[in-house]
């Protein structure tokens, strides 16, 4: 820690409340001077009780009301005729412990009863009460054995003296019974007297006699001997830390064990220690250095370096207060920083003491010299910060805020309040980034508080703006532009004053480097955007949410952040359209507006905009759009093709979800003009809940856009499983028409084909093929179209295969065979068709056609031979012979007959082979089964049934193919097909290596 950081700006944590002259208040004559020696404060009750011990052995009790600043003497008692060295308030037992003349005195808190002297102990040099950890320390005062413990190197011995009985001076102890102990309150104190340390338990029982020796207090004692020269003492938990001129030593109250903490350097001042109640630590003084140790004597944190050797030390929340010679200082315990120093008396006015009620909040501090008592009062955290903010000392205020936050001295609520207040001050000082940073730290600030900075009042949201003026340190909100203007004027005034030599609180940064209005505005807007953006994630009421989104759009527009605008408009948002409509329209942010309409479900408006945009792009209108050119809007700076396409895409996204038939049909046209795929997507979208009426759609599709129609029909039939004969027929006809057109264009282009056009025609024939394939597949697959109508259409075309399919559908076998066999000469297809028909006479008919094709065509003898070869067995030889034409060449005829006969023999042989192979496999399987059944299994004593887990012993058992073994009973129960492991061999057969027939 650098020493430089130990000084902090002068803060006002403590503020003088009042000053008194105790002699005056006590009404003693100036002739018999009254000097203050010790003080104590009790703020448990109201008013505050102030105890003042004098040099003449008097104890004064004053009552102080800090709010009315009134103080009066309640009582004064004489304790001894020697100075009162210390006053300790024993809250637990409601007594005051006073040290004077080497004796301890007990007295009730209001000094109503006589002072009782603890006469059994004299030569007392220090006394302290124990600070516990909420536990109770069991010192075992009642044991009988005399416990002697070697107290480490120092050689002191722990002596257990009394079992709660009688002390040597003859004071009688009322022995408290266990039943009474329940109702008592007690307090532990440690007393240093001559060469010993005495631990005393003071008990107040409900039943005890007020007139007993100590005014109703019983005393139990325990001693640690051989502790000498004690000047100061504290007791936390089990540890009593004792300071003598040699240094500090820690004693364990329970065991008497002692450990040195550190020794004091030569010629250093007397030891002084102070319990820090808040952290349950102890501050030990060496010279002007405060070393803080915990309850086991380990150091905690860096040393506190005071500006002088303090005479008196007090603790107030997270501060340490030290005083000497009319001065006092306040240090922050954690950082060691000096926060405040103040003078309360002239230097040289004698010894001084400082005290507060640290057991309570301790916010009233008393500091006294011999003849003067000063009361000070803690300034609340808020007031301290308010003071700094008033002085525009933001840095210091933030620093203080951070300190308080880290010390937990401030409520969450207040923290949020101050961050907001700070933010507003910074905002009016044009430090927009810092301002928003603080706004964001405030959990209670409402986004609506910033609305008046964005939109001039009155507006839709004016009534939502909370009238939270915080501490009223900043002017009421005005639009950002005004804030900037006013701020700039203030800075200029500051510069002027500065030149004139007048000191101003104006901002140094700005004075040396004056930003432009535009820069400031941009920074302001950017930062407010940042704030609103974060606010969107908060839980806001709907009207505020609307304000946030709408104003966010406003601000984006002000900076022309088109991407952000579109992003906001197209995502889920709460923008109020009416507020933005004309604004966006006028500034030409049409895309944003369209997105906005769309996100608000105003599809038709959105679509009209997309339509307009698409048209503008295509007509080149965008080029000389004066507004856009002037403002250089990215909307229109895209290239027209992509712009147009983008508009179409956005429009189609909307239409895909729209079930509004009119809307869809209205816009389908222009979208189709731009991109047919998009149009198809719109029509075939599954996103809409209710389908569009099919007929209307079909009628609306531009008859010239065949592809759209076809794809729509295809979708209806294939994806929507439409059974409508009309659609099927329509689809078939449309495909057929396209196929015919394709063929015609191919043959047309073939005629003019030049070499360099070959590629083009390839492409065309490619599309011809695909369209024909589509047609064929559909004709085959669908049974719902009207084949005759289609046949009508293609009757004169070359679509023979298609015709064959249609004839097939119509059951015109002969026609089909004729087309396949004679027209297409596709023997395979023809034979296949015969097989489909499944009657032998079909083959015969085909053979007939081959042999006598008619129309002057030569017999297709090869095809005929092939047919006989393949299907000879299905043909009756006699019939075949009859069919053979008498003028058939012998060689061919014999070949034909031979083929047919061979086919029959071949067929027979094939059958025999299959039969033999099956037999061989059956044999193999039998063999495997025998092998499987003749396996050996070894059963021993431990073998158990896999199902019932009973020992098999000599019982009959069965084994399944999966090697599981069961006893006979279980086998009967499980049956043959399911093993003990639950495997069902019928569903899940077992295959083992070697069983598989490999031949």
């Amino acid at each position, binding site marked *: *820690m*650098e*020493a*430089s950081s130990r000084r902090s700006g002068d803060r006002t944590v403590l503020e003088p409340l009042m000053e008194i002259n105790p002699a005056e208040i006590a009404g003693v004559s100036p002739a018999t001077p009254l000097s203050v020696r010790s003080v104590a404060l009790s703020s448990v009750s109201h008013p505050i009780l102030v105890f003042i011990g004098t040099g003449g052995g008097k104890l004064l009790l004053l009552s102080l009301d800090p709010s009315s600043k009134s103080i009066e003497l309640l009582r004064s008692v004489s304790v001894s005729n020697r100075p009162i060295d210390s006053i300790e308030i024993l809250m637990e037992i409601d007594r005051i412990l006073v040290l004077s003349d080497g004796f301890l005195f007990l007295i009730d808190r209001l000094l109503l009863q006589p002072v009782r002297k603890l006469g059994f102990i004299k030569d007392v040099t220090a006394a302290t009460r124990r600070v516990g950890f909420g536990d109770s320390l069991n010192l075992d005062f009642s044991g009988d054995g005399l416990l002697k413990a070697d107290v480490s190197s120092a050689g002191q011995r722990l002596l257990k003296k009394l079992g709660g009985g009688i002390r040597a001076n003859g004071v009688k102890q009322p022995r408290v019974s266990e039943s009474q102990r329940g109702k008592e309150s007690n307090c532990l104190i440690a007393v240093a007297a001559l060469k010993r340390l005495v631990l005393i338990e003071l008990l107040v029982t409900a039943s005890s006699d007020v007139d007993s020796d100590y005014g109703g207090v019983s005393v139990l004692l325990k001693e640690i001997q051989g502790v000498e020269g004690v000047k100061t003492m504290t007791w936390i938990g089990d540890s009593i830390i004792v300071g003598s001129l040699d*240094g500090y030593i820690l004693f364990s109250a329970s065991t008497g064990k002692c450990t*040195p*903490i*550190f*020794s*004091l*350097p030569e010629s250093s001042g007397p030891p002084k220690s102070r319990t820090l109640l808040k952290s349950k630590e102890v501050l030990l003084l*060496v*010279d002007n*250095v*405060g*070393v803080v*140790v915990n309850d086991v*004597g*380990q*150091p905690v*944190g*860096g*040393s*506190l*370096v005071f500006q002088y050797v303090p005479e008196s030390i007090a603790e107030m929340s997270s501060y340490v207060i030290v005083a000497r010679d009319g001065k006092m200082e306040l240090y922050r315990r954690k950082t060691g920083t000096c926060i405040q120093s103040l003078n309360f008396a002239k230097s040289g006015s004698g010894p001084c003491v400082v005290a507060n009620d640290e057991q309570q909040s301790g916010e009233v501090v008393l500091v006294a010299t011999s003849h003067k008592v000063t009361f000070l009062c803690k300034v609340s955290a808020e007031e301290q910060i308010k003071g700094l903010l008033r002085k525009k000392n933001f840095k210091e205020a933030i620093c203080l805020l951070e300190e308080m936050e880290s010390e937990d001295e401030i409520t969450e609520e207040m923290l949020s309040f101050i961050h907001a207040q700070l933010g507003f001050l910074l905002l009016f000082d044009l430090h927009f980034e810092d301002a928003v940073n603080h706004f964001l730290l405030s959990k209670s600030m409402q986004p609506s508080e910033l609305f008046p900075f964005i939109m001039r009042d009155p507006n839709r949201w004016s009534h939502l703006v909370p009238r939270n003026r915080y501490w009223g340190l900043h002017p009421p909100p005005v639009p950002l532009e005004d804030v900037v203007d006013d701020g700039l004027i203030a800075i200029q005034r500051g510069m002027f004053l500065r030149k004139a030599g007048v000191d101003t609180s104006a901002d140094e940064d700005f004075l040396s480097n004056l930003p432009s209005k535009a820069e400031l505005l941009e920074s302001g807007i950017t930062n407010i955007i940042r704030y609103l953006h974060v606010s969107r994630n908060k839980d806001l009421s709907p009207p505020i949410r609307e304000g946030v989104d709408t104003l966010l759009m406003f601000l984006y527009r002000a900076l022309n952040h088109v991407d952000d605008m579109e992003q906001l408009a197209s995502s889920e948002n709460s923008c109020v359209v009416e507020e933005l409509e004309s604004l966006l329209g006028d500034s030409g942010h049409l895309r944003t507006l369209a997105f906005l309409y769309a996100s608000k479900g105003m599809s038709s408006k959105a679509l009209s905009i997309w339509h307009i945009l698409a048209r503008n792009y295509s007509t080149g209108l965008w080029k000389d759009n004066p507004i856009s050119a002037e403002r250089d809007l990215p909307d229109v700076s895209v290239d027209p093709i992509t712009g147009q396409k983008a508009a179409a895409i956005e429009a189609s996204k909307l239409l895909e979800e729209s079930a509004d038939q009119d809307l869809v049909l209205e816009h389908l046209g222009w979208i189709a003009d731009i991109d047919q795929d998009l149009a198809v997507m719109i029509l075939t979208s599954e996103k809409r809940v209710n389908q569009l009426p099919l007929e209307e759609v079909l009628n609306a599709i531009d008859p010239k856009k065949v592809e759209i129609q076809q794809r729509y029909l295809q979708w209806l039939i294939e994806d929507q499983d439409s059974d409508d004969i009309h659609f099927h027929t329509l689809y078939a006809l449309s495909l057929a028409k396209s196929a015919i057109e394709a063929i015609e264009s191919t043959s047309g282009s073939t005629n003019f084909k030049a070499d360099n056009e070959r590629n083009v025609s390839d492409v065309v024939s490619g599309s011809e093929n695909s369209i024909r394939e589509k047609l064929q597949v559909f004709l085959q697959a669908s049974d719902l179209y009207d084949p005759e109508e289609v046949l009508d259409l293609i009757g004169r075309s070359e679509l023979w295969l298609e015709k064959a399919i249609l004839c097939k559908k119509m059951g015109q076998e002969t026609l089909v065979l004729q087309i396949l066999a004679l027209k297409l000469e596709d023997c395979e297809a023809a034979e296949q068709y015969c097989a489909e028909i499944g009657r032998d006479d079909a083959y015969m008919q085909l053979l007939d056609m081959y042999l006598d094709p008619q129309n002057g065509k030569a017999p297709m003898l090869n095809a005929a031979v092939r047919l006989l070869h393949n299907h000879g067995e299905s043909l009756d030889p006699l019939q075949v012979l009859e069919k053979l034409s008498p003028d058939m060449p012998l060689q061919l005829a014999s070949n034909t007959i031979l083929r047919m006969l061979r086919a029959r023999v071949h067929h027979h042989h094939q059958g025999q082979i299959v039969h033999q192979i099956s037999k061989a496999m059956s044999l193999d399987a039998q063999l495997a089964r025998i092998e499987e059944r003749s396996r050996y299994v070894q059963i021993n004593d431990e073998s158990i049934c896999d199902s019932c887990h009973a020992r098999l012993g000599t019982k009959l058992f069965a084994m399944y193919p999966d090697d599981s073994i069961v006893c006979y009973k279980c086998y009967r129960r499980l049956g043959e097909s399911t093993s003990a492991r639950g495997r069902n061999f019928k569903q899940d057969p077992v295959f083992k290596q070697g069983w598989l027939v490999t031949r």
Partner: protein
Amino acid sequence: MAMPSNKIKNAKLVLLGDVGTGKSSLVLRFVKGQFIEFQESTIGAAFFSQTVSVNDESVKFEIWDTAGQERYHSLAPMYYRGAAAAIIVYDMTNPASFSRAKKWVQELQAQGNPNTIMALAGNKADMLEARKVTAEATKTYAQENGLFFMETSAKTALNVNDIFYEIAKRLLLQAQPAPNPSGMILMDRPADGTETRASSCCS
């Protein structure tokens, strides 16, 4: 970037050494990466903490920067009591500070915890032309006393992170529990160094 450490070990570390040897400067360099030409003399002691990652483990140092002034010597035991590590700093341009460092070593050996890892830092290594304490002499001394030694410079940051890193490494090594096989014991090993033979079964 440091990996999320699965283990964080807290370790008390104390810096000891004569006035003006650069203890505070070393800590300031290590904790904040800064150097101040006119570092004020420490009074009492200052406290810092800083975490060092070694592989996937971390050591959080709780650093006590003590005052070198003789007046505060009596406070030192409080700070080195229970310390896991100590850095004894001397100024290599000042032989007296080296003698003082040796005294600190002695004191630690006599009073401190025997497990405390001790490092000796010869600071101000940037002032080579003013060197008065040779590295060789120190090395021998360090070896004899079981310290590890580095010449450092808070000014140039030479070896500053390294010395803390090295300490962290040693601390983690120290913290590693002795291998304690929980399974069965396969053979009784002779107590002396015959393991090599016992480990091969075929020869």
